[in-house]
């Protein structure tokens, strides 16, 4: 036994210990004392060295090794070569406070040159005990000249590149931003901190590819037009935000992707400017996962057609509620006893769609949605995308199948929806969205050409005689589907009564689909009439009509009716770049 309590007993038994305190210390005490001495020496050495360093002269931060050769970050351009992100030579202003003759006067003069810096702040900087302080970075050539004209000693300039976004707010969420890393007096290295800048950081920093601009799929003209249309709609309808995507149906090239509210990437807000969607940096098109509502009925109908369960003419019962367990699914408006599959989509019947979904079954429905990419983040080339995961029910019950068939219970981003619609429109081959010119090759076949054709005809009817009438833009053969989804309550208990996400997902032209457009408004209300109207047919639909009217010509589509559009079998992209 080696129990502690036993030890004194043993000691007691030894003859030496009987003598009491005389042998209280083992004879090897010198060993422990030596250890104490060694630690004191070690810590003494640390203290001495620390002291020697602290009182030695500080040096200016510099980056050796780079010499004079400055690595330049690659440029970013739109599909036609217009600049989205470029570099400007700029300077940074720093000071050696100890060398300043009159810091207070200098601060006053500098405050005149930099109106957004307070004099108090400058005084604090210039009178600090530091031997070196950054005053401002970066500064413009004019500011540099003004500071030079002061003729004050102790102020110095360092060269550095500045990232500049000529397109301003138009492409804010797409480009993201940069921040300076390892700043030296002669140089600052810029690294991406969001959007494309972060996703392609290594490629943009690669000196070997510095002269080779990164060409995006975005069309800046169209992007600008989309932003103007959405801004006007947001203020007309008092919406909290909006997003608008236009995508090539074959290549998945994103031609416009706007999220409002946005920001100026030349003065990017920080993470502290709001959490989640409240931050202007939040990209609703990619990060905003919402229950998008009735637009999903299109996917449900397409699955039913693809599986051969129905044809567009098959009549389905719509006159009664569908009862699943304790839940009853009803229609918002009175429906006839039966409707054709086409009319289920055109008149947006929940009961009809649910009956289709129950015939499809949970397994096959999940299979379709999974292959359409509705359960995974969209692999688009901005850094925020990977973290935007759709929200699906933890347990997929029969009621999930029913509600998801008309767009509730599964939250996806508008970009997910765009990709699914593009897949349906291009003849049924899977589309992976891309922000890079050229896009991706169409992938596996999910729907047949025939299903695709039939669905395009149905979507066209929604616009010619259904809820999408207000997008019937003359000559572009627009087809599409509305979705007005009640927003889930913040506390997770049910849905808000009068807050909706209004979405319109469009394809044009339907006879030879070239683009999909998805426009989604957050809490829009049309108050022009006697009572407030929130339905997508009066909010997202007119917005989409305006966007298509303005943007389609920019993309090389001519408004001459179905005949001419039908000739445009090849991607109109080539027309646009001419």
């Amino acid at each position, binding site marked *: 036994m*080696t*129990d*502690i*309590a*036993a*030890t*004194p*007993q043993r*000691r*007691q038994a030894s003859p030496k*210990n009987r003598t*009491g*305190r005389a042998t*209280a*210390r*083992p004879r*090897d*005490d010198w*060993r*422990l*004392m*030596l*250890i*104490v001495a060694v*630690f*004191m020496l*070690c*810590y003494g*050495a*640390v*203290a001495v*060295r*620390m*002291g020697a*360093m*602290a*009182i*030695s*002269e*500080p*040096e200016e*931060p*510099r*980056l*050796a*090794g780079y010499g004079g050769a400055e690595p330049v970050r690659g440029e970013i351009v739109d599909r036609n070569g217009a600049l989205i992100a470029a570099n400007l030579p700029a300077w940074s202003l720093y000071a050696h406070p100890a060398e300043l003759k009159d810091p207070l006067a200098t601060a006053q003069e500098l405050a005149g040159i930099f109106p957004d810096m307070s004099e108090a702040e400058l005084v604090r900087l210039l009178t*600090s*005990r*530091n*031997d*070196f302080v*950054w005053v401002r970075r970066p500064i413009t050539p004019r500011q540099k000249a003004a500071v030079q004209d002061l003729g004050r000693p102790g102020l110095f300039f360092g060269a550095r590149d500045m990232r500049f976004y000529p397109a301003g707010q138009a492409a804010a969420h797409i480009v993201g931003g940069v921040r300076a*890393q*390892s*700043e*030296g007096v002669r140089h600052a290295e810029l690294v991406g901190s969001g959007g494309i800048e972060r996703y392609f950081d290594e490629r943009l920093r690669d000196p070997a590819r510095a002269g080779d601009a990164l060409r995006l799929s975005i069309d800046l003209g169209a992007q600008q037009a989309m932003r103007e249309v959405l801004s006007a709609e947001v203020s007309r309808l008092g919406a909290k935000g909006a997003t608008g995507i236009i995508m090539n149906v074959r290549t998945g090239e994103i031609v416009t992707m706007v999220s409002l509210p946005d920001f100026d990437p030349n003065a990017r807000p*920080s*993470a*502290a400017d709001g959490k989640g969607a409240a931050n202007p940096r939040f990209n609703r098109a990619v990060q905003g996962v919402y229950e998008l509502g009735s637009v999903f009925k299109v996917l449900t109908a397409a699955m039913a057609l693809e599986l051969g369960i129905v044809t567009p003419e098959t009549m389905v019962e719509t006159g009664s509620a569908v009862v699943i367990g304790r839940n009853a699914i009803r229609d918002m408006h009175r429906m006839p006893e039966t409707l054709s599959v086409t009319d289920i989509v055109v008149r947006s019947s929940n009961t009809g769609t649910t009956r289709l979904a129950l015939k499809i079954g949970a397994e096959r429905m999940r299979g379709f949605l999974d292959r359409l990419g509705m359960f995974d983040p969209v692999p688009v080339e901005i850094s925020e995308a990977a973290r935007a995961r759709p929200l699906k029910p933890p347990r997929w019950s029969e009621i999930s199948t029913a509600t998801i068939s008309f767009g509730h219970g599964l939250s996806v981003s508008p970009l997910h929806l765009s990709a699914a619609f593009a897949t349906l429109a291009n003849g049924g081959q899977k589309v992976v969205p891309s922000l890079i010119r050229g896009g991706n090759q169409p992938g596996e076949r999910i729907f047949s050409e025939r299903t695709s054709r039939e669905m395009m005809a149905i979507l066209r009817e929604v616009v010619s005689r259904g809820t999408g009438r207000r997008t019937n833009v003359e000559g572009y053969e627009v087809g599409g589907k509305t979705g007005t989804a009640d927003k889930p309550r913040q506390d997770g208990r049910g849905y808000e009564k009068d807050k909706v996400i209004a979405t319109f997902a469009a394809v044009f032209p339907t006879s030879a689909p070239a683009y999909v457009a998805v426009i989604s408004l957050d809490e829009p209300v049309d108050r022009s009439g006697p009572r407030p109207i929130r339905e997508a047919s009066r909010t997202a639909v007119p917005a989409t009509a305006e966007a298509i009217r303005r943007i389609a010509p920019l993309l090389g589509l001519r408004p001459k009716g179905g005949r001419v559009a039908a000739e445009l079998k090849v991607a109109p992209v080539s027309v646009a770049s001419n």
Partner: protein
Amino acid sequence: MTELTFRPAGLRADGALFADWWHTVDRWTIGAVALLFALGMVLALAASPPLAEKNDLWTYHYVLRHAVFAVLALGVVLGVSAVPAHLLRRGGAVAFLGFFAITLMLPAFGTDFGKGATRWYSLGFISLQPSEFLKPAFVLIAAWLMAGAAERNGPPGRLISGALAIAIATTLALQPDFGQAMLTLAVWAVMLFVSGAPLFLLIGLAGAVGLAGTAAYLNSSHFAGRINGYLAEEVDPNTQLAYAQSAIREGGLFGVGAAQGSVKWTLPDAHTDFIIAVAAEEFGLILTLLIIGIYLFIVVRALLRLLEERNMFIRLAGTGLAAAFALQAFINMSVAIRLLPAKGMTLPFISYGGSSMVAAALGVGALLALTRARPQDPGASLRDSI
């Protein structure tokens, strides 16, 4: 029987556990540890907001986590300090087996967080570095073995503990984590020395370590890179070392003032491995000397108290724990001032990091438990009990 005889000395009165603990524990050291926690909070406020900003988190995200861990760790220090020595010994042995197994499983289940060495388990909201916990447990089991060796017919404790030390050092070196491997060997050597090992044995061991180090230098790029960086005349100004050095220079005697520092914006490890540089820059030499002083105070005080201790296990375990604590702080600070080559080691109770803080708390808590005032001869205990 022994229980009857000696229990009264440990327990002043029935139900006065707290009073008993309070009168026997080293309250000066508890005060010093609390001071370290306080300084750690101040420096967390200084060093971690930039990291939160980089990761798009709330500004005080890491400060809050640091505070939570600090409170938890202080609780661990106080709680463990009340554990009786024989329970510590058993607990140490069990913990050693557990954490050694977990460390061995790292290559299969661990993560390297993109830092080039697999040392961590990712448990979602917290990451765990098992080697941090392995150290105090190893000290306890090695002390038990060495103390056992001193008994008549005892086991060959030195040999077994040496084998364990080498097994741990090898496992850690393969991660690779040469810093912790060297620390484990050094602590074991200190314990061996104090246990009264012959000097020629120690000299032979030092030679063997030298050979092993040379072999590692020749065979591991990770290790060689660090040593070369240390030996180089000119510091590459782009490295963490250079930033830390310039921060200490900027700080001077009294620092540039709270929140005025800039090194925390450029150093990726400002809140962990190079926290002393942040301290030096913002609060100057005054604070760094205070920190050095507190560590030395805790260690020397513990060793001097152990000098009075005659129980071999307590003496050795206490020495080992104190040495591990002292060496860790020493190595961390020495890296920042280029006295030693760079190693990933945290500053106990000050650096950010939940698992290192709790592990250090376990070690210091055990040290406090072992340095509690204890009757050292029967006569004294009899007098106390009357």
